[in-house]
């Protein structure tokens, strides 16, 4: 791999940028691979990278219907955190955060992981207690966490509404200093480039239309560019898992829902952390370019439309102004939607499937971006060894039958409420 460094920048700067090579090749599909990963998003590309890097498997294809990184890895609000309460989530997301901390250097691609911290405001004594519980669990699992009081919150984020008329007064906040944001596209591109350097074939504009079977076993995929044989097939197409799962004959507890995101015009730095409202659906961070990036709740009905509804836009705007009155005059530049695989407990499904040769990585709900490195790592392990990595042992498909769901919000088996 042609190394990226300040020296290569200088060298290329002086020679008119003419010597930068392709970040990844554009190969034609071979007839057979050891592993075929369906889905060239963050998770699929990361899986390919770790299969090569950790397990020495290099005869891999990542097959992408459109362009790589075109799904949720390029549509999310880029927040990375590991402030989970429940056993199963806590360790997995912390492992992911640790991988993030080294990711730019692992990939030789600056994914701009910025650990500027995440603050979630608490608006009642009960909420302070709930956040304290969470922080205690995090600390006992070796994760940094604090609960701030009102004055500490005020010092950190002076632009919240501390006035007498604030609709939801601020009692304190949950704070994770190692949380932050990353440049989402760079994650897909960085994994793609690093996987490509290991010999992984990244095949764009190639849609999987079916699965090739030998008896009960899946031994390859049918694509718009012909049949491709595979020792093992991994699905990493969150948002559209049901559609491919159906082609393979999988019955899944997944619904597709829209989550919107918003960005304002670029302004000089004002929001220095990731901040979230505790009394409504709204979280905000400021990108390095200067735009405030907002997220909110689901649109609330099944959809594959990749676009959202004005009602949700307004909900988020209301919450944003309630939290930060000074942003009222800032202007929303763009809003867009991503299709989420929602599961009945808002936890992912990443496991071998009942179908021999087929492995599933999906159901990421709205939490997939921060999970990308750990998901790739653990899914690669699962594909390489045939059995789940211990960190994802709780994310199996059978948990809905057994009752071992990991329901962080306790919202129950209603995907649209999770």
């Amino acid at each position, binding site marked *: 791999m042609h190394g990226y460094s300040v020296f290569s920048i200088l060298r290329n700067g002086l020679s008119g940028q003419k010597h930068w090579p392709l970040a990844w090749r554009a190969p034609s599909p071979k007839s057979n691979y050891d592993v075929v990963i369906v889905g060239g998003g963050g998770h699929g590309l990361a899986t390919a990278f770790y299969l090569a890097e950790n397990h020495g498997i290099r005869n891999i294809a990542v097959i992408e219907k459109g362009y790589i990184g075109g799904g949720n890895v390029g549509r999310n609000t880029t927040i990375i955190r590991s402030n989970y309460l429940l056993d199963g989530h806590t360790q997995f997301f912390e492992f992911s955060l640790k991988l993030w901390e080294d990711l730019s250097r692992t990939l030789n691609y600056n994914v701009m992981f910025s650990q500027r911290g995440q603050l979630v405001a608490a608006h009642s004594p009960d909420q302070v207690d709930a956040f304290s519980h969470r922080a205690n669990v995090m600390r006992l699992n070796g994760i940094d966490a604090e609960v701030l009081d009102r004055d500490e919150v005020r010092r950190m984020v002076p632009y919240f509404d501390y006035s007498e008329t604030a609709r939801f007064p601020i009692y304190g906040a949950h704070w994770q200093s190692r949380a932050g944001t990353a440049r989402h596209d760079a994650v897909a591109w960085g994994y793609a480039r690093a996987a490509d350097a290991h010999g992984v074939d990244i095949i764009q504009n190639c849609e999987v239309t079916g699965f090739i079977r030998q008896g009960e076993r899946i031994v390859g995929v049918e694509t718009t560019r012909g049949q491709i044989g595979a020792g093992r097939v991994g699905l990493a197409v969150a948002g559209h898992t049901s559609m491919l799962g159906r082609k393979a004959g999988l019955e899944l507890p997944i619904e597709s829902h829209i989550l919107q995101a918003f960005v304002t015009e670029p302004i000089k730095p004002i929001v220095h952390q990731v901040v979230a409202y505790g009394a409504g659906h709204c979280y905000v961070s400021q990108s390095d370019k200067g735009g405030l990036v907002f997220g909110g709740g689901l649109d609330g009905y*099944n*959809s594959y439309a990749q676009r959202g509804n004005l*009602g949700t836009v307004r909900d988020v705007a209301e919450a944003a102004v309630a939290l930060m009155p000074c942003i009222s005059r800032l202007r929303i530049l763009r809003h867009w939607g991503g299709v989420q695989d929602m599961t009945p407990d808002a936890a992912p499904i990443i496991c071998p499937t009942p179908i021999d040769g087929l492995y599933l990585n999906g159901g990421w709900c709205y939490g997939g971006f921060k999970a990308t490195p750990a998901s790739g790592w653990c899914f690669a392990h699962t594909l390489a060894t045939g059995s789940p990595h211990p960190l994802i042992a709780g994310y199996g498909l059978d948990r809905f039958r057994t009752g071992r769901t990991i329901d962080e919000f306790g919202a129950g088996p209603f995907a649209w409420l999770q």
Partner: protein
Amino acid sequence: MLQIKCPCCGPRDHDEFLYAGDASVSRPAHNDADFERWYRYVFVRENPAGAHREYWQHVMGCRQWLIVERNTVNHTILSVNFSREALA
């Protein structure tokens, strides 16, 4: 805004309604003890990209539960019926 033509109240914005998911799954009888049927009813979802039968309740209107057929790709609403009538 999705506009749902409530058979009782006329066309209204969807934010007056409560969504309750897939209406194509069939609920086992209340005294059905079959685990598999309950499991499938509660968890397994077809999740089609296209026409989808789904429950909506007009909570800010007549409070009737409706079955709406809606395209999940372009959000076109194909039909709206009282669930009592649609299921009858």
